[in-house]
């Protein structure tokens, strides 16, 4: 499986955010998108998964088979929002996404165990702290299988210990043949990653 972007550019509100991006990553690889605020990290992820149209260039997903026709179908997108309902329990939230997204992978309680929320599944999502909410959102990536993870500031609000745990989860995903594209300010401590710097520094 290979994800390639050629000459990619995007606009927001009529303003060119970035243009002429090239990158390609294959199975088991990770791409770290860095850059200052407003450089277009989030925009790039949204363009990749198809939430925003690309102003120019192409995005190619090759060798993924009929099962994953587009990036949107093949990707888990973890945006700024956690996509969890405060009125429902953590388990209910995850069970919904597991059923809705299909391709079940881990059981809900296994996934919660992986992110260190093993004993809190019964709690309403609203009672969790910021970091716990983010971890619950990360558990969503584990309950159904997608080869590509598009992560937007995945570690926002996580403490050091949870971050280490999350790094291990990402490494495990790569070992399973997954692709990771993460927009972040913080080094994620991943082994041999590619890096894409957006903005003036580029």
């Amino acid at each position, binding site marked *: 499986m290979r994800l390639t972007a050629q000459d990619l550019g995007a606009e927001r509100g009529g303003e060119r955010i970035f243009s002429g991006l090239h990158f390609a990553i294959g199975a088991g690889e990770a791409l770290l998108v860095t850059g200052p605020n407003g450089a277009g990290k989030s925009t790039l992820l949204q363009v990749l998964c198809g939430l925003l149209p690309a102003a120019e260039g192409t995005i190619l997903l090759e060798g993924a088979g009929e099962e994953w026709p587009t990036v949107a179908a093949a990707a888990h997108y973890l945006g700024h929002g956690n996509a969890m309902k405060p009125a429902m329990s953590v388990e209910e939230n995850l069970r919904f996404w597991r059923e809705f997204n299909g391709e079940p992978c881990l059981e809900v309680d296994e996934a919660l165990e992986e992110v260190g929320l093993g004993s809190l599944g019964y709690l309403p999502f609203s009672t969790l702290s910021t970091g716990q909410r983010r971890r619950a959102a990360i558990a969503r990536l584990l309950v159904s299988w997608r080869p590509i993870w598009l992560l937007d500031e995945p570690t926002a609000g996580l403490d050091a210990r*949870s971050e280490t745990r999350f790094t291990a989860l990402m490494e495990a995903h790569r070992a399973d043949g997954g692709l990771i594209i993460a927009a972040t300010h913080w080094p994620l401590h991943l082994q041999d990653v590619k890096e894409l710097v957006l903005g003036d520094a580029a």
Partner: protein
Amino acid sequence: MTETTLTGRFAGLANPTRFLALADRLILPMAVLSLLLLAAGLVLGFRAPADYQQGTTVRIMYIHVPFAWLSMMCWGVMSVAALGTLVWRHPLADVALKAAAPVGVVFTGLALATGSIWGKPMWGTWWVWDARLTSVFVLFLMYLGVIALTRAIDDAGRAGRAAAVITLVGAVNLPIIKFSVDWWNTLHQPAAVFRMDGPTIHPTMLWPLMITALGFTVLFFTLHLAAMRTEVLRRRIFAMQRLAARREEGRSA
């Protein structure tokens, strides 16, 4: 979570804890008492002579009138609770208000329904928009409004104060309901029991009515107490859930 804040939390719960113990002891005997009174009142009611004009239809009075009284008394209880929230700042006051509203709305709904059923054979229609019926209907809407309000706000303290203000403003409606039959010319009959010149209702009917009324009143307080206990427990569960989430945080850090 340090030791001092933990003890502080338990000190804060002390009052509700005593309330829970009290409620546990009271609820069962009160329920039994209300059932006995209601059984006695209803038996007496069916033994009492039928009305010379209304025939046996009049027997619905033995439940309609207590429902109507209680619909007003419940708002009275809520108004006192509202004062408790706003003036005395009693910790259980907003629990009392929140717990009373659903009980009150059921009693008001039953008063409206039984009145409607009584009205159909007597007046030939289920409903008329006269002053008494309309004002009770407005009371029904106000109960629903308070329930919606207490459910819409997550923070218990803020919800309690908002509901207290609305309840006190709504209390204006109580005298309107009571005196509507005197102030306006209505289809609903005027007061027959609580009058300055004594009841105009015959003692054979008055006694069963008073007993069922007492029975329903005890039933109201039983339900109210049970609902308050549920609410206190619900808040405790909520507090414990927050505590559990924070404790987990402490362990993982």
